[in-house]
């Protein structure tokens, strides 16, 4: 493809740079507040701390922080794994098998995404109480994983639909079982879509606060967003610590983002191309 003129190139670069700078501006404020010992909200034009200090990070990472970080990691990873386990097999079945109720099942699953979460917290609480899963990370993981199933199944089914069936049919003719075909032929080909759905489930569990705060009853089982939320109260926000906590919470997700970026771009859209 021909390259556009230098003028156009410079203009596009300038536009991109300006937009990125604007998009990073709020992030710069978070960093500035995190590095400022004061707990007040900072204002003004330039987000550069006057007396930078790491005190907020020290405050935030003290106490039970390591345990709570571990909780968050365990919950988010387990959610991603359990969610993937449930949705890959379901998506594969929905894509390949012709059992009755298939179409309606997809419609119902997707429809659940549209119901506002606001009124579901109390019924969920009752359900977990019934299952004796309150106050346990297992209960939390199951709730998050179940919530992630519709979107994950939708994305994965879209991906499976695009995969040619010839390979599987050949394997089946050679005497492989459905399960073997699925595990050894289909799953490796679906890696980008698996990465996307896992990341979505992970992020959802990693950031969720309202249900976690309601279901968990022991500081040693709290996840990080619950801890972070304690810096916000009716009497004002401890902005420095809140911002430092925000950075600590965001880092793992960003690392995952960058690590999975390539799969991400592919995995998200393949589902859409053929839907």
């Amino acid at each position, binding site marked *: 493809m021909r390259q556009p003129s230098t003028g156009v190139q410079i203009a596009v670069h300038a536009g991109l740079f300006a937009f990125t700078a604007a998009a990073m501006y709020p992030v710069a404020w978070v960093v500035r507040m995190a590095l400022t010992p004061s707990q007040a909200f900072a204002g003004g034009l330039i987000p550069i701390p006057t007396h930078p200090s790491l005190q907020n990070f020290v405050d935030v990472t003290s106490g039970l922080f390591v345990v709570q970080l571990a909780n968050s990691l365990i919950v988010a990873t387990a959610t991603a794994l359990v969610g993937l386990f449930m949705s890959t097999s379901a998506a594969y079945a929905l894509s390949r098998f012709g059992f009755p109720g298939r179409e309606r099942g997809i419609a119902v699953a997707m429809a659940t995404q549209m119901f506002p979460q606001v009124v579901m917290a109390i019924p969920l609480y009752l359900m977990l109480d019934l299952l004796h899963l309150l*106050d346990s990370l297992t209960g939390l993981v199951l709730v998050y994983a179940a919530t992630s199933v519709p979107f994950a199944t939708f994305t994965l089914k879209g991906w499976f639909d695009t995969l040619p069936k010839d390979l599987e049919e050949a394997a089946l003719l050679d005497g492989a079982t459905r399960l073997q075909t699925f595990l050894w032929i289909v799953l490796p080909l679906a890696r980008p879509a698996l990465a996307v759905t896992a990341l979505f489930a992970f992020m959802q569990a990693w950031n969720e606060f309202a249900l976690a705060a309601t279901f968990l009853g022991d500081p040693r089982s709290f996840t990080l967003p619950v801890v972070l939320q304690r810096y916000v109260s009716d009497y004002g926000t401890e902005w420095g610590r809140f911002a430092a906590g925000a950075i600590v919470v965001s880092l793992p997700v960003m690392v995952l983002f960058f690590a999975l970026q390539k799969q991400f771009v592919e995995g998200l859209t393949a589902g859409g191309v053929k839907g």
Partner: protein
Amino acid sequence: MPVIVALLAANASADEVVIWHSWRGDEKASLEQAAQTWADRTHNTVSLLDIPFGAFDSKVETAIPRGNGPDLFVAGHGNLGKWTAMGIVDPLPQAVPGQMPASTAAVTVDGKVWGAPLAVKSVVLLYDPTRVTVPPKTTDELFRQAHELQGDGYGVLVQVDQPYFHGPWMHAFGGALFDAQGRLSLDTDAQIQALAFARRLAVDEGVVPPQPTSELLTRLYREGQAPFVISGPWFVAELDRPIAAAPLPVVSEAGAHAKPFLTVDAAFVADQAKHPEAARDLAAFLAGTEGATIRQEVGRQAVSALDVTSDDPLLQVLAEQARTSVPLPTHPDVQSAFEAQARALRDVIRGAATPEAAAHAAQQYAAILSRPPPPPADPRPWMALLALLIPVAGYLGLRGSGGVGRLAERVVRHRWDYAWIAPAVIALSALVVAPLIAGATVSLFEHDEGHWSFVGAANFLNLLLARDFPVTSALSFWFKLVVTLVWTAANVALHVGLGIALALALREPWIRMRAGFRALLVIPWAVPNYITALVWKGMFHAQYGAVNAVLGALTLSDGPAHIDWFGSFLTAFTANLVTNTWLGFPFMMVVTLGALQGIPRELEEAAEVDGASWWFRFRHVVWPMLAPALLPAVVLGSVWTFNMFNVVFLVSQGEPNSTTEILVSEAYRWAFTRGNRYGLAAAYAVLVFAVLLIYTRFTDRLLADRTGRRPA
């Protein structure tokens, strides 16, 4: 080994008393120490759980009725009226002796004492002792000193637009939220006079900063920009500047003392406590001399115990102020009264209404918010309808599957297929579908102070027929629906537009640092949105926000721009829109980048060779292939945006006058900040569901038309 045995033995005989609270910092430490002292003395154990402030109420209200609550919980007395009606607190046999009369009054409802008062909190007059020599005794004197001392800064830092901070003036003029019979009284002469005083304080005197949020006030005081602050003990914590306290002055116009609201933090014995006896004992200990001394010394609390006095001047002033204060009402409609009064204050301060008009509007508004639930309905016709619906639904479900026999035969033939979907189906049914159905069913009921009644379709009819408010009112369902639709359309258009523009640029090989741009541009997506939404909220502050500062710099004006972002619907909506666009464009950008990879560039190159312009190539070559690939993401994105609670709730908070509220945030308001009308909230949720279902049906058809595929 002997140690473990000893511990086990001790545990076997001792009670473990569980305490829930949301105190922070020194107060938390003092509670732990006091509770531990009691435990050591009585050979019991205690375990404390501090719960985020935002989750505290909903947690005690959900957990305690199910028997999962603590033995004791520490909270402000403001919700006591609701909690006694819900039956989640148990009364004490008698009042804890030796407490301030005001605090015992605060924890008394229906003639019974429900809690052990621990600490009293109210606003007082705080001042900078390096600048103020004699604190003023009257408001006229306060204004005089403020003018004299303010210089380039401000005279008085006070959240003048918040009902809680308006309390002192309201009470000085003889007003109250409720009259002696418990009826709303927001439009009395006293209320009008108090609103006029608020206007004078906030605007006419020119001593109070605009949009005085608590963060801003803390900052201004730290910078030494004001001599006076009207705030409470929470303001003093973590301040590295000297501060002194005095009782609130006499309001000169009223000739009476300013009387703030008094909040009493108390220890409440939870209903179904495992160890009620021990919990009562611990509550009495915490409130008594010994517990109060620890809380005063370690937690720097103004304690309710009369025999514990402090030589700390701030605590002395707080104790003195408690005598001239009015306990926060425990009336169940207090939140509605506050919401209405907040509107009146905003309108009066912004000059949008006279005090008379604002007071009358507030009275009407509060009456609407706190109107009684719909009358109970007869459930029998509904059960009959349900009995009828099940076979009809069954018939519709089976139609087209060629009869029950053939269906059963197909199911049996495919029985192993179901094993593949079983885990997902079981989890989804139990943890998503069942709570959803339960939540939706709540819309046929209504909740009022702990009592549920079946009301049939009344909640829906009230919303759809706009029975309670005119259709054009900001509270009407139709108004909210229009706002939500505009909100969704504007957001999705911006997300998609920006996403496509960025993706088109970032796929060009001649762009430098492509990976770097891409990495930076997904950050808004990676940071939890409840954090960035709060940051944006602060950036939109009229005077100190970064947004106005940037606009001022861009227009080369001297100093920041003066846009009152939350003052009008259009600007507040824009603030929400900017925030959510920032949050949402990375997703669309990534999706578009992926979709573009699937479009071969040869076609474009051929068009280019033929001399087609850039726009022509995009419009006729790229777009036809891009659009179908983006459609599912657009549908998903619009569903998410439609229900984007966090941004609206945290950025505009519905301001001005709840016009920028969308359907989900309105549902939240009815459920949690307007007297727990769970039924109405659930009706909102069901209607949101219905609207989205119609929308996705429509887009499914669109998708099917575009791709020649059958709709799912």
